[in-house]
């Protein structure tokens, strides 16, 4: 094991509600690397992110998850967050009675509190700070609110679920540039931060360099390559006949 890895997944299998979703997923992400996860709908991409974060619906039946060399497989969500794992969800819950600004301050965990207003300004979401988290937010507003919390947290590993889905082009630019910033700046732990990002369209890659791309298919990682190149291959051939994938996958 290389302790300098930010994330190492060793043959991780995950069940949701007793149903197997992910099988023997192994993955390594080094400091400063941005990884992108492709795969058709229902292939288990979001489940993988949730499982790394430790959400209780995602039950790990096999393998282990190492974060900066530490086995976090059995740590609760909040401890993972405090170690430096951050999650930007695609469909986060609405939380009544808690203003976004307050939750962003909480996310900063005392490190970065003063910057919340500044970050909100940068993301163009200052008007959301006083509103209850995600209550009545549009698709673009949800992305910005999630990103604000992630940026306040400055995680060593950002898990980002479809930052470019359901967002207008202007907002994609804001979100993309902000994510690029997030992985460029040293994290709170002074480690070059890494990211694992799910994208279907690849729009986000206009703003971010994707060091490594992975294809998840039917709960298994089936291919790996340089991010943009992999996206090109998938665009050309579809997931079914992508030459980078280990075997040609039957079209669903």
């Amino acid at each position: 094991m290389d302790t300098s890895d930010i994330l190492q997944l060793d043959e991780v299998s995950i069940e949701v509600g007793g149903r197997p979703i992910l099988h023997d997923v192994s993955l390594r992400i080094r400091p400063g690397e941005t990884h992108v996860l492709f795969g058709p709908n229902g292939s288990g991409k979001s489940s993988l992110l949730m499982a790394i974060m430790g959400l209780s619906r995602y039950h790990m039946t096999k393998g282990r998850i190492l974060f900066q060399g530490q086995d976090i497989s059995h740590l609760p969500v909040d401890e993972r967050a405090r170690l430096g794992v951050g999650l930007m969800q695609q469909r986060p819950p609405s939380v009544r009675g808690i203003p976004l600004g307050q939750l962003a301050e909480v996310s900063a965990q005392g490190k970065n509190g003063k910057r919340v207003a500044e970050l909100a300004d940068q993301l163009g979401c200052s008007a959301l700070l006083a509103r209850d988290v995600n209550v009545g937010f549009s698709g673009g507003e949800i992305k910005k609110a999630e990103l604000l919390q992630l940026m306040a947290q400055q995680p060593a590993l950002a898990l980002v679920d479809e930052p470019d889905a359901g967002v207008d082009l202007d907002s994609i630019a804001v979100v993309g540039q902000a994510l690029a910033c997030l992985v460029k700046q040293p994290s709170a732990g002074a480690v070059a931060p890494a990211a694992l990002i799910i994208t279907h369209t690849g729009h986000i890659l206009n703003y971010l360099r994707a060091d490594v791309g992975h294809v998840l298919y039917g709960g298994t990682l089936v291919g790996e390559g340089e991010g943009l190149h992999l996206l090109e291959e998938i665009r050309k051939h579809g997931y079914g006949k992508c030459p980078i994938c280990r075997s040609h996958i039957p079209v669903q």
Partner: protein
Amino acid sequence: MSDLSLTHPGPVGARADAFRARAIQAQTRPSPYGPDLDLTTFSHPAEQQRQRVDALRSLEQQIREAASLAGIDSEEANRAASYFQIDYSSIYERIQRRYQGQLELMTTAEALTSYDWLWDYWWQAVAVDQDKYTAAVEMAQTGGFFLRVFAGQRVKEAIQACLLVQENNISQNVHNVIMIEEGADAQLITGCTLHPRVETGLHIGVTEVFLKKGATLSETMIHNWAEGFHVRPRTGVIVEEGATFVSNYILLRPVRSVQAYPRVFLRGAGARAQFNSIMVGLKESLIDMGTYVELTGQGTRADAISRAVARDRSTMYLRGELVGQHNESRGHLDCRGMLLSEHARMHAIPELLADSAPRSQLSHEAAVGPIAEEAVEYLMTRGLSRDVAISTLVRGFMQIDLPGLPEILTKHIQRVLAATAEHSL
């Protein structure tokens, strides 16, 4: 000074006799809601006038603290006027000098002696024979206050009234009348509370509110009871043209039983009512609270928001009934309950009635359920421990705007809510 007489015929004596006769008929009539109480189990010690005080700060510390838990400031900072009753006796009424001539605050007994016209309003917003509790107040009234704000006066600071029970196992039967005259505007804090040595007893509070044309009243009632104590408020509010009634109700401490179903009559065109309730069911508390509003006038509007958290072995009923009687009327009930215990029970019972007014717009949303696990974990992804995430969500759940409150009281309520949320674990 305005003449508030209505055109009710008949001499005062005859009317008083008629109320008494109706009360006698209702003496054993149970309320349709809440557990039925045997009123003979509460003692009625001989009337004993408690010693009056010159300033609230001279009250013993335990009483001041009990009052403070119900939002009453014994320093009277930022208060326009104060009324303080212990058991059966009023011990203090004071209007700050700067508000002299804007309002009156006295016992209802004194007001009935001073103003014959008050009999035109007596038992008009609440029926004397509604049940055995209203009957008990008529048969054996033990105090209550009369507040009157003169026409056109805008009383900038809150008026406070404290009804405190100090003696164990008594029945405090108060009858309050609030008269906000045309175009006047006032905020009232009513604190109902107990001396810490009181374990059991009963408080029956009849409150009749009359809002004249264009008047506004924001009333905040904070209840601070004990595990063995019973409470039966009986409130009626008559709202005339263009007048607004705002009610904030806060119950954050255990009680044996509290049952209230205030009735509001939006009679005048453009009359409005807004209710905000925050209630926490603790230990064995039985809380049965509702809001009944009749929207009779053109362009009337009612909104009732309640947030209830049930813990321990508490039982909570959240009732609401809107009756649309004018085609141009609108009302909405928003009632949410959160259950934090396997043994707690919660019933949400919203009712809507369009009464010969098919275009009246009435709606409700009601939800009861546990704290959302998804939201707990969401906060945990931001680094909050499970316990802190839960208390943050409970506090957030109970966070509703309480308009018309002095800032200092809003802060006090926020502190109490925060402490309650933390204790909810």
